[in-house]
């Protein structure tokens, strides 16, 4: 069974856009805390929570208790995507007569808890968990709390109670976004360490200063600490929590308030403020711009792939690209599923398996059971029947479905019926078969053609650029529409993998900012560009963005 990575990722992206739609329509609301918990909610909703939107009161369902109730847009958006109601209803958020109240309310079927008065949710969840135990039900309770919320003494009353009664059918998740209404948590009521000065990013990174976990451990809890924006980490933490018996479990997810929209990130102002309508199209574009870096380990030491995987993990890659070559479809031979199976225990980072092999339909199951999270097969060796079968097998196993085309291949006619169901399309920008080739420039034009077809067929997955991607051309690939970037020798061939990945990200950020400024200009001329720049008040962002606007001649 795969991670369901792309399905979750796509839903998280959609949910964030719905939060923007809802709060901007309402003219108020809490986007910051909705975004910090977006991956957590996506993972719970679309991987773990057992529910039936057609029968919200289904007796055997699991329950999601949003204790940090002010983040209701983040709950409602996921409920809409899960089928409880139409996504258009989100525009009624906070309106008179709406089921979508300012804070979660039982008025909306499927909501389990009237959250909002902070500090109550964990106690309430314990009650629900105890009731499930008394009734011998398999119900699992997922409780999402805010970090500011844990200033409330009642949270610690509940922490003791859960320990005493060994409540192990409850998973608490702390959305540790470091910001509460007034300011940074470490300024208002330190949970880790008192913050001196304004820059809390160092504390975010300095594990030696984290004390929240110790607090919960001392209350008898099983504590799992993760990066709450990494789906694979959220997934593995919830899995571990579920498997832990006899003690309650809490996942401490370090997150970024406002994550996904640069001007909202880490800015306390966006705790409880809605974006202005004029910025909505730009923000939506920004949310569609999230990008992933996937190093291809065959560019490294083939005799020690274990070490290459470790370098990718340490380098903060988003996932690991595994080029499987059979020596038939392409002249070279790399490794097969047995190697992937050996590498799998090393990390929870998604494995993006690219099958450059003949007759993939015969082998796809092996790659699923080896631990792939995404499997991409080549259009050149598939037809409508075999790809249909591959698609079904992958979906059933929660593995992302990818289709690849070689530089001289166009999307075949038969593939078009699958476009809307694809998670990933790899557009090869080198002839596959070996590492270290130069990017084929005509790929840019090919992408123009492809984008048209993809949009005509409602593609909502990710385009992966693969082949010759470097610091010099990654920005152009982004502009072409690529959102996942495979880096071979350009990443793995470098000494400092983490450093080069950071540089890749910076290049993408530059291209993204430029695209967004262009969008602002198209929508509202220099005036809107100026307003857009002014939103970016945290750190160096403003100067950097201003510089780009100058280059474009919009300032």
């Amino acid at each position: 069974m795969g991670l369901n990575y792309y399905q979750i990722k796509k839903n998280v992206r959609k949910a964030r856009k719905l939060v923007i739609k809802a709060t901007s329509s309402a003219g108020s609301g809490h986007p910051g805390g909705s975004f910090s918990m977006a991956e957590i909610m996506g993972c719970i909703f679309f991987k773990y929570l057992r529910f039936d939107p057609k029968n919200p009161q289904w007796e055997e369902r699991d329950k999601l208790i949003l204790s940090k109730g002010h983040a209701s847009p983040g709950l409602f958006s996921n409920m809409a995507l899960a089928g409880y109601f139409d996504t258009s209803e989100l525009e009624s958020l906070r309106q008179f007569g709406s089921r979508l109240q300012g804070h979660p309310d039982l008025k909306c079927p499927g909501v389990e808890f009237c959250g909002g008065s902070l500090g109550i949710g964990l106690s309430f969840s314990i009650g629900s968990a105890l009731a499930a135990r008394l009734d011998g039900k398999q119900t699992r309770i997922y409780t999402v709390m805010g970090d500011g919320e844990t200033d409330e003494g009642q949270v610690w009353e509940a922490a003791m109670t859960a320990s005493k009664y060994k409540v192990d059918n409850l998973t608490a998740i702390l959305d540790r976004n470091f910001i509460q209404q007034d300011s940074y948590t470490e300024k208002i009521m330190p949970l880790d360490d008192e913050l001196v000065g304004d820059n809390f990013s160092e504390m975010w990174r300095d594990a030696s200063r984290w004390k929240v976990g110790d607090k919960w451990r001392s209350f008898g809890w099983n504590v799992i600490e993760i990066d709450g924006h990494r789906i694979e980490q959220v997934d593995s933490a919830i899995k571990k929590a579920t498997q832990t018996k006899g003690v309650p479990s809490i996942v401490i997810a370090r997150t970024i308030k406002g994550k996904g929209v640069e001007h909202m990130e880490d800015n306390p102002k966006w705790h409880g403020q809605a974006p202005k309508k004029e910025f909505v199209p730009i923000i939506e574009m920004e949310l569609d711009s999230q990008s992933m870096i996937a190093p291809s380990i065959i560019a490294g030491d083939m005799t020690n792939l274990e070490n290459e995987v470790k370098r990718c993990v340490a380098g903060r890659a988003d996932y690991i690209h595994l080029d499987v070559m059979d020596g038939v479809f392409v002249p070279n031979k790399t490794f097969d599923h047995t190697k992937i199976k050996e590498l799998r225990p090393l990390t929870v980072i998604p494995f993006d398996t690219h099958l450059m092999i003949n007759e993939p339909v015969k082998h796809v199951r092996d790659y699923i059971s080896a631990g792939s999270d995404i499997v991409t097969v080549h259009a050149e060796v598939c037809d409508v029947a075999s790809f249909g079968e591959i698609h079904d097998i992958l979906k059933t196993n929660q593995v992302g479905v990818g289709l690849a085309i070689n530089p001289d291949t166009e999307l075949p006619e038969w593939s078009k019926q699958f476009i809307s169901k694809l998670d990933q399309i790899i557009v090869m920008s080198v002839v596959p078969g070996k590492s270290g080739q130069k990017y084929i420039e005509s790929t840019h034009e090919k992408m123009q053609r492809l984008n048209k077809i993809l949009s005509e067929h409602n593609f909502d997955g990710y385009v992966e650029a693969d082949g010759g991607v470097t610091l010099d051309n990654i920005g152009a690939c982004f502009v072409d529409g690529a959102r996942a970037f495979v880096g071979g020798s350009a990443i793995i061939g470098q000494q400092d993998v983490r450093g080069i990945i950071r540089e890749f990200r910076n290049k993408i950020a530059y291209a993204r900012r430029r695209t967004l400024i262009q969008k602002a200009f198209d929508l509202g001329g220099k005036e809107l560009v100026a307003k857009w720049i002014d939103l970016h008040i945290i750190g160096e962002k403003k100067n950097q963005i201003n510089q780009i606007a100058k280059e474009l001649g919009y300032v």
Partner: protein
Amino acid sequence: MTIGQMTDMRTIYGKTLVEIGDENPNVVVLGADTTDSLKIADFGKKFPNRFFNVGIAEANLVSVAAGLAMSGKTAFASTYAIFLPGRCVDQIRNAIAYPSPQDKNGLNVKLVVSHGGISVGADGGSHQQIEDIAIMRAIPHFSVFIPADTVAVGKLTRMMSQKYGPFYMRMTRSNSPIIHEESQEFEIGKGITMRDGPDCTIAACGITVKMALDAADSLKQEGISCKVIDMFSIKPIDSELLEKSARETGCMVTCEEHNIMGGFGSAVAEVISEAYPVPIKRVGVQDRFGESARDHEIPLLLEKHGLTSINIAKAVREIIGKKKQ
């Protein structure tokens, strides 16, 4: 049990809970380190899986009870009055009263407290809750009971276990005299007429019902004949009976072991002023706090706050004088 016999409300409450627990496996009981005192520990001995002692953590007590109720349990949560409405109004409001599943109003939690009012005595003013009626009746969806004797406690406990919804019931600490026949029925929102007479209505609740009866008996000697009603159901309140009594007697005295502001007298005045205005005199704690008093001194404490049959009789004479002729 016979009329006038002194009995303990908590004992009857605890005993009734055990009976209910036997009959209904869905009933759960929660306490906060006062389970011996509240006499709910016996429930815990008999049904250990359905009994939760959360320690000295009342906000948690109330909210855990709400979670159990939301999952279909009938939850009784008990401790002293001062620690529930007095301490947890937010959790009571937001975790129990506000959440309304489907077509219901609030969650199925019964908050049953002891040590209401100033007759707590020795523990002192810090532990004498004289604001709970005002707090609890202002929260939508809650019903509020103040029983006068153990007959009422037993029957109301049973009734709450059978009727869906959030309830608050306040008991008194000390033994109190039985005033009702064992056969007395208690209906939510219905007062009980204990004495009838044309000159004045005395509406009372809790331990003041006995005082009201004593006052009526002594006034009888003077030729003043009072109607006495036990208004154990403070919310919903029996507006019909109050209006009828106002029409029949033309004046009214209310008695409560509670601050006269926002309490039972205020609730009666709200009804009467809209339905059939007559002069009303409220007997109760005059917007000040209580203080310590050892058990044998509790009558002195009550007297200091005007909670005696003598003071009630005085109020009756005074209000009769203000009646429109």
